């Protein structure tokens, strides 16, 4: 188990370096090869040559590629300074870059937005796990019943309806509509838990609806497959109650693929809840990146991409470890 853990951590560290390099290259190096001057994306409508030169100097765009990557790495771990035109900007570690557009270091922005997204993703995940897995298991056990067919139709709807549709619908009903039950103004958890909850409940439900639908379908299919396994028959042959067969023997196996999905989904949601966050106007990473795209604020896009990759990486690491806890066979791998 320990050896497994060390191997996983090492692999994660290697991936970390690869991800940072690739992300940096995609945004800073590849455009250069494609003949696009990225310094131009940092200045305004009138591309004053001095302005372009100033950005180039601050970012070190004239330096060799490996120096730029190295500086970027160094910034992440020990911080860096950007200087040019008689102006020096400190970006303390971890320096995820600096937006010359909004004149702020990226890390504080990420740090500020991250809890919102995390709260959204985790809250929704709890909801959709409970709803999706319960509905999936029930469907698998009552295969072919009215409940099963009904649940699968709802699940199909959930999978097919886009967030901005269900989101707008819930907003129209519960916030602006006749049922003015919830607020759509985000308040940090620490400031006022009740208001936070009120602002988060609709996004959670909307997001959870989509994912619960997917999880219900996966759970149903997996559960049906697992119920056909020999070891489930063995468990019954021992004289176990059916409830225990399901909970103790079938559920544990069913959780394996669900856990994999959960890891990926949570990781992706950290940077990818763009639609939900913008629909509900939650000041999280997804909304930030949307605004950054609109403002062509490249460093923020880089920062969010990076933090998302790290979140996916971290989520996968956690899944790998949980895997080993659940499935003893994995520990050998």
């Amino acid at each position, binding site marked *: 188990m320990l050896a497994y853990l060390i191997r996983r951590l090492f692999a994660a560290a290697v991936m970390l370096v690869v991800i940072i390099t690739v992300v940096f290259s995609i945004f800073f190096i590849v455009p250069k090869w494609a003949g*696009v*001057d990225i310094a*131009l*994306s*940092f*200045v*305004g*409508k*009138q*591309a*004053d040559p*001095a*302005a*372009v*030169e*100033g*950005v180039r*100097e601050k970012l070190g765009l004239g330096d060799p590629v490996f120096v730029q990557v190295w500086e970027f790495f160094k910034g992440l771990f020990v911080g860096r300074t950007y200087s*040019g*035109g*008689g*102006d020096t*900007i400190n970006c303390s570690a971890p320096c995820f870059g600096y937006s*010359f*557009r*909004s*004149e*702020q270091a990226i890390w504080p*922005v990420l740090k500020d937005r991250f809890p919102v997204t995390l709260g959204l993703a985790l809250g929704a995940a709890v909801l959709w796990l409970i709803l999706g897995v319960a509905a999936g298991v029930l469907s698998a056990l009552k295969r072919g019943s009215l409940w099963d067919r009904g649940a699968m139709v709802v699940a199909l709807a959930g999978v097919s309806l886009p967030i901005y549709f269900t989101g*707008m*619908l819930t*907003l*129209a*009903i519960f916030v*602006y*509509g*006749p049922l003015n039950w919830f607020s*759509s103004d985000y308040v940090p958890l620490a400031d006022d838990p009740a208001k936070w909850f009120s602002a988060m409940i609709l996004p959670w439900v909307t997001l959870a609806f989509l994912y619960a639908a997917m999880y219900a379908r996966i759970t149903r299919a997996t559960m049906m497959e697992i119920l056909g396994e020999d070891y489930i028959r063995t468990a019954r042959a021992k004289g176990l109650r059916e409830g225990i067969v399901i909970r103790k023997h079938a559920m544990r196996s069913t959780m394996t693929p669900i856990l994999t999905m959960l890891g990926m989904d949570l990781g992706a949601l950290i940077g990818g809840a763009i639609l939900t*966050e*913008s*629909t*509900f*106007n939650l*000041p999280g990473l997804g*909304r*930030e990146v*949307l*605004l*950054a795209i*609109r*403002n*062509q604020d490249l460093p923020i896009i880089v920062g969010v991409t990076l933090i998302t990759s790290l979140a996916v990486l971290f989520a996968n690491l956690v899944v790998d470890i949980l895997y080993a806890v659940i499935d003893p066979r994995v520990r050998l791998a």
Partner: protein
Amino acid sequence: MTTQRTSGRRKQALAAAIGVAALLTTAACGGGDDNGGGSKTGAAGFDAANNKVAQADLAKKGGTLKFGAAQDADSWDTTRGYYGFMWNFSRYYSRQLVTFKTSPGQEGATLTPDLATGLAKVSDGGKTYTYTLRDGATWEDGKPVTSKDVKYGIERVWAQDVLSGGPTYLKDVLDPKGEYKGPYKDTSADKLGLKAIETPDDKTIVFHLPTPNADFEAMVGLTSASPVRQDKDTKSKYGLHPFSSGPYKFQSYSPGKSLTLVRNENWKQSSDPVRKAYPDKITVDIFSNANDLDQRLITGDLDLDINQTGMSPQGRTTALKQHKANLDNPVSGFIRYAVFPQSVKPFDNIHCRKAVILGADHESLQTARGGPLAGGDIGTNMLPPGIPGGEGQKYDPYQLNGANKNGNVAQAKEELKQCGKPNGFSTTIAVRNNKPVEVATAQSLQASLKKIGVNAQIHQYDGSQTAGIIGSPSNVQKKGFGIIIMGWGADFPSVQGFGLPLWDSKYILESGNNNYALIKDKSIDGLFDQYNKTLDDAGKTQIATQINHKVMDGAYYLPFVFEKFINWRSSRLANVYTTDGYSGQYDFVNLGLKSAS
């Protein structure tokens, strides 16, 4: 039994679905049907604030004025902001020597003294401008605003390597050779080394121009000519908290999220002939979802959209149906058009250009832009109606709003024959991929050109790379972009502020070019030179008209629309009006609320 129960459930589901649909269409319309006229307590009426003042006498002191936004300013630093709404909004916290009159319509585009006691005393054949500062103007810490603060603020324009983004007219006019290196590289002790500006005492400031420029005073009225206190200059971070010289100061700002201004207690009404400073507090909340923003406007959570770029299609539809009295439909000052680079064959031939202009279906292009209300009036020439010299639809040399409204195939084919392409030709339309409406106009144009045998392919390019893709004449020629879809608005309301970068041959650049048509017309260049030497308004207006006619005669452009917006004003607002000074936006600085609560 089973079937009965099922059908019962189905009915319920259907009823629920219909209910939801009904909710969607009527959602959030709290107010009654207040179309048409206006009342003292409610909305002022449709177009009631377009070029005229609505409910001026209802403005009370106090209250919180609530702006919403889909987009933050590019920068709140007076030197760096370039968005029209930022210039408009900046008057809350910064003053200039002169500024636009707080009047509706065209009068709002004329200058009036602000920090200065009067308009400039021009001498030396238009090469020297002298201003005297008025008494009592102070910073937010109570210290007086001096001529040196104004000079330092203007000098910051030279520090483009640190403070990029804003307009550079002042630098280009006062120091065309770029001799001054900006205050951060200034070796003189007081960092006031710019020779073109003199400050003989704290109350006097003198500008020396190498050559006369008729629009110089308009440039002095730009936000980028605002004073900045040297000891408060945080360089690139200044935009996070600009030091106020106006009636309001920054209380808090979180980029991309929110901005709050509160009263600057050290500002004195007696020192300021322009600003009324009605509300106690001004808030800006930024939303990522345009529909959400519109909903909040309609429900009355917010008073107006700071971006002033019109409502989203969905919100617009609801508002037009149910709250027409809260809407204005001003002309934006933008012209949307197609332009023909002469470097791409066969657009070197004027007849081929005319063929495209005549062949296009102008009504369909207007529809693609959003129709007469949200899109604008059919554009007939290249000078916006709000700019002195602009004639609007009265000047229509190609009958685009007349006989040829839906395209004139016969005449277009005749032009093609003269061009030597009787069977038409193939070309490429370049359009930004991030503007769906522009893509729609490209498709409309493509469809109507097919009728005259012109086969146009649409090429969508990365809108963020405009400067490098269509701003590079060599690239345009290489890729064969015969038609480029674009739009343009004036930085300041004059033919120079609008057309100089577009039509003057001196402005053809290797990169970041805006003279896409590559117009090299000596008579146009000459008219611009002559314009700058002309000091009387009537003369300037006449030249502006002449330039516009020259451009239209050359058939370099196919104008689509004189753009119009549909903007929302809440029923709480008083003293509301649109101004040509800020391209048809509401004049923010003197907005008031009808009650303080």
